[in-house]
């Protein structure tokens, strides 16, 4: 299921924060989510956390999926999480993927970041995860 009961499609921001130019994974995930029926907003490259959080707010996004392969994940995820909270988006799922060592992923999970998908992930696992997690966080009538 990629829609709520009113027929509104789940809206997902796929974002590339920081200076990292590796966009292959983000684009593949964006295309896979689109093909699975999500409404996808791809930010493009070199975004600041502020721009991403604002996009989430303006688009009334259900989830923000962030791709980081630059090693900056321990800086960017906490900053984004903080911004989402400050802008009143506590129920918006922040998850992502990239090259993120397991203990860093664990530390981020404790802070409230959702799943982080590494290399070799099947995009259907990402689809399933979002289908389950979005309605859990944002129950709608």
């Amino acid at each position, binding site marked *: 299921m990629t829609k709520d009961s009113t027929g509104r499609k789940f809206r997902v921001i796929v974002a590339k924060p920081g200076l990292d130019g590796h966009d292959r994974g983000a684009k593949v995930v964006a*295309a896979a989510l689109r093909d699975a029926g999500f409404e996808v907003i791809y930010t493009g490259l070199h975004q600041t956390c502020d721009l991403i959080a604002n996009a989430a707010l303006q688009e009334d996004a259900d989830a923000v999926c962030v791709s980081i392969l630059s090693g900056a994940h321990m800086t960017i995820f906490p900053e984004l999480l903080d911004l989402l909270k400050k802008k009143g988006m506590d129920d918006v799922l922040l998850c992502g993927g990239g090259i993120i060592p397991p203990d860093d992923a664990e530390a981020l999970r404790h802070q409230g970041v959702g799943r982080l998908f590494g290399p*070799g992930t099947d995009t259907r696992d990402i689809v399933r995860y979002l289908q389950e997690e979005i309605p859990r966080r944002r129950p709608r009538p």
Partner: protein
Amino acid sequence: MSAPAPTRSRFPGTLVPHEQKVYSDVPRDLGKAGEYPFTRGPYADMYRGKVWTMRMFSGFGTARDTNARFKYLLSQGQTGLSVAFDMPTLMGYDSDHARSDGEVGREGVAVCTLENMETLFSGIPMGDVSTSMTINSTASIMLAFYLATAERQGVAPARLRGTIQNDILKEYIAQKEWIFPPLPSMRIITDMMAFCADHLPKWHPISVSGYHIREAGSTSLQELAFTLMNGFTYVEFGIKAGIPVDRFAPRLSFFFNSHMNFFEEIAKFRAARRIWAKRMKESYGAKSPESWKLRFHTQTAGCSLTAQQPENNVVRTAVEALAGVLGGTQSLHTNSMDEALALPTEEAVKVALRTQQVLAHESGLVDHVDPLAGSHFIESLTDQMETECEKVFGEIERRGGMVAAIEQGYPQIEIARASYQFQKDLEERRYLTVGVNALVEEGEKPFPILKIDPVVERDQVAETQRFKERRDGTALASALADLGGAARSGRNLMLPILAAVKVSGTLGEIVEVLKREFGEWREPPTYW
């Protein structure tokens, strides 16, 4: 009719029916190694004369950390250096800029001041080593740091050997570390080609790179066609700028990926040499055989490595390295087994370097020149690569050349499509990758990885700020003003950049001046 057998390849020539013959009759444009059109190699004796250069790409943390890794690699028998810079350096931000937060020293070494470059090469004789620097939108500034450092070591520019990647077209296409729009970027590059032709006779001012195009998800054919077209575009801009083609073309070098499509990679390297030679001679009027020869560096495919069962990556890398050698590469980087997890540890890098050394010293490969020549399969694959490549050239030419094609998003979208198709094929098990969608093991043990201490960033930021406090502000302001003037007037930018660097101008400050004059590039966010 049954469906064709599954293949990893997206290249039509790969499936050769069983009934085809074994040997080629009269292979097209084959010739001998060292002779036009160089299908079999740029040199007659190839590795019998000189084994390929073993050049491991490395860089992390501070200049001090990377300097120590360089010295380690040289002590282990590596024969050339290759610098990986961090993201802020690639994107033109000083380490103390807000946009550098969390990225300093993470994916490469931070170099934003002359002092950083001096530390990076401290105790390394710059007149003796050859250095490759993977940097593009800020290449002219990094070359200026390198020249000024060499000068302080007492090494004249004419003695410097090495390569600076400086291939901005593939940044827009694949690697995506751009700053300025395409046309001003092409001007910066043309200025550097002219400067190098005058002052750096042993330097390669551009390494035309297919590596990143392939890593972004292209097919082997797209890698070949887009890369060669980028190369021809630099040649055209050089000629238009009034530099005689035979003065700069011999110094252009290439950089390809060697992926897991073993025979296809070999055919790609052979076709690359032939296509380049023919066009340089016939279309661009190059008279010197040195301008016709395509010489290249190879790196094994990072994107073929798996995070699952990482030890298997040693085997993948060995197979890919073998294809590079059979294809006649001039230098080689072999990836480390842990690179799908993090930057490589010293141990993992050593195994990767040893892989090349085993190939070079134990296999007998170096005794033979293009040993696969004459095989019908290899020759017909090489021919088809060339034919298909010409079709892609035709499409780009119809779009008004590579700069226009990039502005239209053509190569970017073609690559995004290919990479999505590859992912779907993998998920639907049309391809098998050991450990990922076949022979999967549950509960793998954690693999030891390199961690970058956050202290690195704090130290580098503090050092950058101290560097800025120590400078003569007046000399710097006038050097930066002169650079702005050169950007406006069309004067060659290399000398003013060098002058700014010598009065302690930082990377970020020089980039800011150029941004004011040239503007910044924004890619339309499409995932196709």
